């Protein structure tokens, strides 16, 4: 556990050493800010639905960009060899990197807390969906980070890692809007697999264990697949 903490700390500070962090945060705030508030005054409703509805799509681009370097860069430079001959296990490395990515997503969401604060001055804001929205956003961020980490373990090339991660995350995000293309029998299964669906539920302010279980499963499967890939490289 101590080792996970050391790796977490190193990976987390790494985000802020390189300019990646600041660029990604700026892009994230710009896109979500513009798209959620350009129509805010037209609807004239004191709510953050527009913002939260965007998150699955924005995250499916932004998060793979954050996670693409986690393994790819180490494999490319060769520092993974140095790291692995220290007394750490593959599991320690994966968890450390995963938590660093999730923590960064939380930091990225932090400035957006100003939106609900700002809206309370304009009207009566229902705090339930806002709180749910942030819980959902963290769950979604965790799931996508795990997927991105998995994509990064597959290749030495960061661009390829980004594209693979983006494709998987984007598929999870749009799956429930593609239901008409699937035969009736499997629609309910496909609909369950959609991250968007579960996120919407939580963002309504209803934190259901089924939705939490879905995100936990995605995280678990992705991290487990990552560990299989990394063990295979031995």
């Amino acid at each position, binding site marked *: 556990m*101590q*080792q996970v903490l*050391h*790796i977490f700390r*190193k990976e987390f500070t*790494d985000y802020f*050493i*390189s300019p990646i962090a600041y660029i990604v945060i700026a892009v994230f705030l710009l896109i979500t800010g513009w798209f959620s508030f350009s129509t805010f005054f037209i609807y004239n409703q004191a709510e953050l639905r527009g913002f939260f509805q965007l998150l699955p799509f924005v995250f499916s681009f932004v998060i793979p960009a954050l996670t693409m370097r986690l393994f790819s860069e180490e494999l490319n*430079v*060769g*520092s993974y*060899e*140095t790291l*692995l*001959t*220290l*007394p*750490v*296990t593959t599991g320690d490395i994966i968890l450390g990197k995963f938590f660093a990515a999730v923590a960064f997503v939380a930091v990225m969401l932090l400035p957006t807390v100003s939106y609900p604060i700002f809206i309370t001055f304009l009207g009566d804001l229902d705090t339930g969906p806002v709180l749910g929205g942030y819980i959902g956003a963290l769950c979604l961020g965790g799931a996508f980070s795990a997927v991105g980490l998995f994509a990064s373990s597959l290749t030495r090339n960061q661009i390829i890692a980004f594209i693979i991660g983006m494709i998987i995350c984007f598929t999870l995000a749009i799956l429930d809007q593609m239901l008409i293309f699937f035969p009736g029998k499997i629609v309910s299964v496909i609909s369950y697999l959609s991250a968007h669906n579960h996120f919407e539920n939580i963002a309504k302010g209803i934190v259901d264990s089924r939705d939490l279980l879905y995100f936990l499963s995605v995280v678990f499967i992705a991290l487990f697949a990552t560990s299989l890939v990394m063990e295979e490289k*031995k």
Partner: protein
Amino acid sequence: MMIQVEQLTKYYDDLCAVDHIDLTVKRGEILGLLGPNGAGKTTTLRMLTGYFLPTSGTIRVKEHSVHERPKQIKQLMGYLPESAPLYHGMFVYDYLNYVANIRGLDRTQKEARIHHLAKLCGLEHIMHRAISELSKGLKQRVGLAHAMMSDPEILVLDEPTSGLDPNQIVEIRDIIREIGREKTVILSTHILPEAEAACDRVVIINKGRIVADGPTELLKQSGRSETTLFVSLKNAPAETAVALLSEIDGVQSVQEQSEASTETLTALKLTCPSDPDPRELVYNAIKKTDWVLMEFRQESKTLETIFQELTKEN
């Protein structure tokens, strides 16, 4: 016994990189792993340090097996991979601090250790520079400090001096010899004089197999049935000198080395059996003349020639 390797084998898909190697390393030994490119040196070291798992065979370090307790083995070892791949964005101090944390050093120990290693490896003036800005030699030294962080009992170095300038090579070699006094050191290299200078024992591998294994001195003497003498004479006409020296008992051939000869100097190369020692007879023969002996040296068989013989394509 520090390290015991039995029937170690590693396949990359169909390619056999290491083929049933047996090897034991004693405590306090400096072992040189020699071989041409692609012989399996790095793969062997990577398996020893736990980066790769062997396809078959066992590695035991002290009482730990690499299959059962890889973490304990990693704690006993410090490893410097080839060309010292480090985190580029980090500062040298931050990097060493990170390694010290992972190695489980506590706060007071850590500061003292980092300070000591910085001094030993000559890093004091670059502690607050980014690793990406460092030259290759400096990176190598940071890598060495990284490998020695926990004061490991075994130090594994993969081509520690590759790409360094001659001064840096001497420095690194001195550090290695310094450490080798109390620690077990395994280093791989394809530079033979380096193995000759630094190692107690040399293992030569070729195509994944061990082709020679022995103390450096013994290996150098092995198969030395004939020896070569170089003689430079002043005021000696070449033909007379060749004729005179050819007469000596045991001298098989005398050749004039025209590229080393000048107007007044005659350089000759003598081939003789190494037993009995031919030098005395040659010297006595020259003493009887009025020539001046400018140079007289014996070329012993170097590791270079042994290496070439052993790793030659059949």
